[in-house]
């Protein structure tokens, strides 16, 4: 039990416990804050796996972007301090049962299956390697998906503006 192992279990506990609280808390603002901690825990797991670039992207996009967006939309649409209505017990029970059965199925599969990795030399996930492959046009390059995602982001930008545009009442 060395330091790395202890950090891993702490990060796992942070992620799972705050994720569970995020979906069960009845105050929506607290739920958003628990989601924030869960996402930070996942970023910590990326750091633990030594994928620093992905961890940084996770913090910038999720913690800095999406959670802030969610909190703003809670402020815009929810009376603050008001609790969410209690769900029916049967619905909660069946949802928990379905989730638990799925989880049990996956875990049984996990313990039965033996993963076989390659023994080739590892590529370091540095920013230089990532950038070279992402903008590469030869085999294994990701230039085309990169451009497609750029167009998707542009479309989402325009779509958000169009959807959220306030339609002025027509003056006759």
């Amino acid at each position, binding site marked *: 039990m060395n330091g790395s192992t202890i950090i891993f279990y702490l990060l796992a506990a942070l992620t799972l416990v705050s994720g569970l609280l995020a979906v069960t808390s009845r105050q929506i603002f607290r739920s958003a804050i628990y989601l924030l901690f869960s996402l930070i825990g996942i970023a910590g797991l990326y750091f633990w*796996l030594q994928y620093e670039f992905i961890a940084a992207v996770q913090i910038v996009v*999720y913690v800095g972007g999406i959670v802030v967006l969610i909190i703003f939309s809670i402020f815009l649409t929810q009376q603050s301090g008001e609790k969410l209505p209690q769900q029916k017990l049967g619905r909660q029970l069946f*949802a928990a049962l379905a*989730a638990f059965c799925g989880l049990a199925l996956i*875990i049984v599969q996990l313990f039965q299956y033996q993963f076989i990795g390659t023994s080739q030399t590892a590529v370091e996930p540095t920013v230089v390697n990532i950038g070279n492959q*992402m903008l590469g046009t030869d085999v294994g390059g990701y230039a085309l998906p990169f451009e497609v995602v750029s167009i*998707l982001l542009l479309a989402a930008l325009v779509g958000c503006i169009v959807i959220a545009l306030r339609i002025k009442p027509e003056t006759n």
Partner: protein
Amino acid sequence: MEPGLNHILFISAALFFIGVYGFFTRRNLITILMSVELILNSVNLNFIAFNKYLWPHKLDGLFFTIFIIAIAAAEAAVAIAIIINLYRSHQSIDVESTEELKY
């Protein structure tokens, strides 16, 4: 026990089904969106773990994660625009109030 691939896959499976539970039980559109974010994050964690432990000579899992993060950001922005627009017209963001999609 030294944590390895199976531990991370267990975490991501648990996180996925936490998200599924939230998706089933919640009735508020913003909390449903939060559950979807948890599900997408568990998928990202899976991709990174497979890339790290099984195919370390490639970076494909990492690229899938980057693209999923970008698409999730776009999805969240559009979803929140729709939710705010819905709140303006219905004064409520429960899924029961979204039965009609037209004005």
